[in-house]
């Protein structure tokens, strides 16, 4: 295998790599100047479409296609929102990009705004990233000073302002319409669709919401070309006409029980095992992996035997996971209780459910209470069926919720119980020897309260 040279992470470790001077010395902003000098917005859209770039935020929707959903000849304004509310547990790839190479992101934003004819871009940054905030604001100021932002950029009719907006730390603000509501100053309750943001988004105007890493990829495609991008990754499956393929480099966030956790750049399609062994130095303390989260906690779990699954957009789905998600790989070693894992996961989602849709609001809270009872030694085998039922019925997929948060809460629950049912049953039988088999409705416990 030819050694893969990091591109998105090129500036990591470079002294003052976050400055505009350093970025330009690596060839940055030249593609932007070339684009502004001689290309039309349609050319940029075409470039991104043909590159096969899929959104890096989690859903993997083809970026160029998303842009084409904007209404034609709209009088404007059209808005571009950059989603940097990176709050999926285990995910920190956006943070690396924003802290170490903010201009790579900004150039992507300028190119994407040019392509979508947006003259205002909002960068929605999660509250917990103060360093990203400082670096981004510094970089935006530099870009204004250098004439890459502002009115009539480089003497063209194209103008762009970027507003850096700091969120207030809620997971739901990473959902694109929750983000839009939050930007409008409202409670981040995801909107019902249709209308989709491309038709009616921020301030009821056509809006595109893209991820930070997607923007960095746009910069790199503009600099290195479509062919370079398409040479990396996994081509589309010819037997599946609906598979757009998984092209380009991807930032994988490796964490959990590995020797060397970190953010690593690899071609899309690297297997989880390769990632853990080659980049992460193997599972820590010489142990074996029990389970691995393929792309953020809401994507579910892969077992040890599923670790050879390629981490491209289609891979994790083949082993029952929700998808690639944010490519945040979290390793759980064989000394860790899967009951504890699921309890922690349920606690997160019960805390972060926005509370709008009944099935998610009550489902996440109920499943947490059941898991708390199981952990308190009062579990029953029947509880596992109830948890599975909650998992199977909440979310966008069964149609019972507005946004995908509930799917994200359901997947770890479904995967954990289906793939590790034996461990759950052993735990319940061991901790509740006299009551595990009871199927009557349980009396309430005084000690059980939601955290």
């Amino acid at each position: 295998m030819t050694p893969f040279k990091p591109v998105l992470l090129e500036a990591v470790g470079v002294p003052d790599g976050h400055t505009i001077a350093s970025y330009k010395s690596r060839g940055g902003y030249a593609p932007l100047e070339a684009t502004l000098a001689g290309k039309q917005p349609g050319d940029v859209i075409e470039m991104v479409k043909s590159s096969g770039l899929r959104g890096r935020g989690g859903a993997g929707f083809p970026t160029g296609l998303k842009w084409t959903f904007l209404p034609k000849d709209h009088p404007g304004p059209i808005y571009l929102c950059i989603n940097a509310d990176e709050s999926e547990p285990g995910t920190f790839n956006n943070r690396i990009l924003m802290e170490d190479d903010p201009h790579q992101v900004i150039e992507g934003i300028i190119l994407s705004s040019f392509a979508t004819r947006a003259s205002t871009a909002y960068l929605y940054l999660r509250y917990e990233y103060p360093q990203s905030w400082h670096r981004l604001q510094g970089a935006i100021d530099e870009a204004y000073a250098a004439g890459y932002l502002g009115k009539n950029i480089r003497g063209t009719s194209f103008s762009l302002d970027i507003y850096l907006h700091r969120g207030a730390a809620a997971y739901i603000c990473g959902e694109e319409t929750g983000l839009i509501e939050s930007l409008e100053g409202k409670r981040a309750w995801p909107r019902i669709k249709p209308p989709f943001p491309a038709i009616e988004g921020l301030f009821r105007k056509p809006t595109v919401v893209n991820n930070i890493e997607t923007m960095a990829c746009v910069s790199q495609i503009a600099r290195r070309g479509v062919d370079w991008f398409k040479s990396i990754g996994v081509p589309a499956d010819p037997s599946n006409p609906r598979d757009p393929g998984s092209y380009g480099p991807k930032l994988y966030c490796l964490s959990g029980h590995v020797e060397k956790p970190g953010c690593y750049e690899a071609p899309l399609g690297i297997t989880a095992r390769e990632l853990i062994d080659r980049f992460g130095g193997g599972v820590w303390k010489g142990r074996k992996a029990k389970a691995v989260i393929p792309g953020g906690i809401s994507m579910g779990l892969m077992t040890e035997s599923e670790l050879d699954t390629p981490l491209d957009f289609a891979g994790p789905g083949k082993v029952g996971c929700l998808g690639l998600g944010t490519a945040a790989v979290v390793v759980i070693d064989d000394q860790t209780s899967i009951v504890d894992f699921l309890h922690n996961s349920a606690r997160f989602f019960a805390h972060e459910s926005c509370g709008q849709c009944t099935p998610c609001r009550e489902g996440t809270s109920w499943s947490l209470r059941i898991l708390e009872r199981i952990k308190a030694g009062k579990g029953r085998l029947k509880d596992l069926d109830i948890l599975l039922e909650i998992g199977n019925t909440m979310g966008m997929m069964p149609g019972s919720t507005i946004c995908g948060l509930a799917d994200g809460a359901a997947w770890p629950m479904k995967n954990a119980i289906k793939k590790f049912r034996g461990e759950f049953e052993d735990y319940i039988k061991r901790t509740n020897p006299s009551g595990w088999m009871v199927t009557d409705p349980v009396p309430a416990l005084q000690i059980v309260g939601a955290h």
Partner: protein
Amino acid sequence: MPVVIVDGQEIEIGADERLNCIEVARRAGKEIPHYCWHPGLSVVASCRMCLIETGQRDAATGKITMVPKLVPGCQTPVKDGTVIVTESETVKESRARVEEALLIDHPIDCPICDKAGECLLQDYHFQHGQPERRADLQPFHSRKRDVGPTVTLFVDRCIMCTRCVRFTREISGTAELMVTSRGAKEEIDVFPGHPLANKLSGNVVDLCPVGALGDKDFLYQQRVWFLKREANVCGGCSAGCSIHTEHNQDAVYRLKPRENPHVNTWWICDEGRYGWHHLHDQSRILDAARKATSPSHRGSGATPATETVEWADVVVKLRDDLKTAGRLAVAVSPMLTIEEAWMLCAVARSIDPEAFLALGFVPTKGEDETFPGGFTIRAEKCPNRKGVEEVLALYGAAGRSWNELVSHVAAGKADAAWITAGYPGPWIDTAAAEAFANLKQLVVQDLFDSPLMRLASWRLPATGFAERAGTWVNVAHHAQSFRQAIRPPAGVWPEGRLFWNMLGRRGLYDATAVRQQIAASSPAFTALAGEMPATGVDLRIHQLA
């Protein structure tokens, strides 16, 4: 015409109608249960109770393709060929699960809940829920929170449909209510220092599908299943909102808005909603009385002693007294129905063919106030000025105002005056009443004592809005008929009954018969002929055509 298929039944809808699945299903006689959706508010599709299966019938082939997942009926518009399935197993299971979920954080304190009996959570659970509870819950009482002068919030009974929040944002435009916290810990609350205190606040109680928002005025007064409801019209202002008067044993307990697309849509204001307490005020005038004629009855104070007169005698003696006095002036109160006004004018002219007829006192307060949602509270605090003016026009007294009547009397052009009033509060002061001091006979018909009443030689009780039947015409010429909801206090004849008897008509007063007579007598009232729709008619409908 577009055709929608609801559970196999083909329903034709209008070509330009924009309906959602709930509305279409209703036409097919199917109720899709829903909490958060309300036709007067924006769609949020968050309660997920209205999840149904949908599909599309191909116009050319007739083949039906179903959507693989459930969709909210409230959020899904229908078009030609839309297929709706409201009773499949999947739909039923989904409803049962939403019901189960909603009860997880609910106190289930129905025995002490004011909403019990008219609660959607109860009704839907009975209809769509499962009999056994699987969740581990402890019984608890809901926490209670004061959110404003009119409303108490029972925090834990709330199912987070956010209808109330949307109402204050979209209809009253005051935005006092909000959602705090997240997930299952979410609560409705007000902003610190900004209580729910707008003029439409009571509507949030009606909107609440469960017992979370309690109306302080009604709280713990009556179990709702004892209440009877009568379709009435609010007499609080000239908007003439359609209401339900809810009562038991001749006592009103609360007023609720009655849906009427032509008048008030789904709302009423607090002034109207709580504007019924005067009906049960202990200081109401209950007897017909005449200034004492024999010296032995004459009092020593400022108020002349009176003697009670039996109603049968009033009919005769009142006529005699007025006839003897001479020239008559009559104020026709805008609180009267058009039937009563019409009969009163007839009575007056039968006593004195030259009787001076004029509109009664028109109480006003402030300016008309329109809210962002379009609802308007009128400054004119009487329900039937338009109707009485039309009646006066029939008697050649078009446009004659209260002030003209006062000048007429003050100028000594009348020997007797008959002032109908019926206002719920004070309306005339001593100075204004002075104009009527030197009449041979002064008949005052009112709910309460007043400086004018103290001058009267005849004191007659009046009745309130729920105690009468008839027709009122609102500020926009919209006429609505209503029946009597409760009986007036013992001993009180409604105005209509007195006028009916004074006209020598037989049997009991029949407002409908009088309305038909009025309709036949003038083109201005033709629209009132025949059966009156519950939502009323526009009086101008025939003039426009």
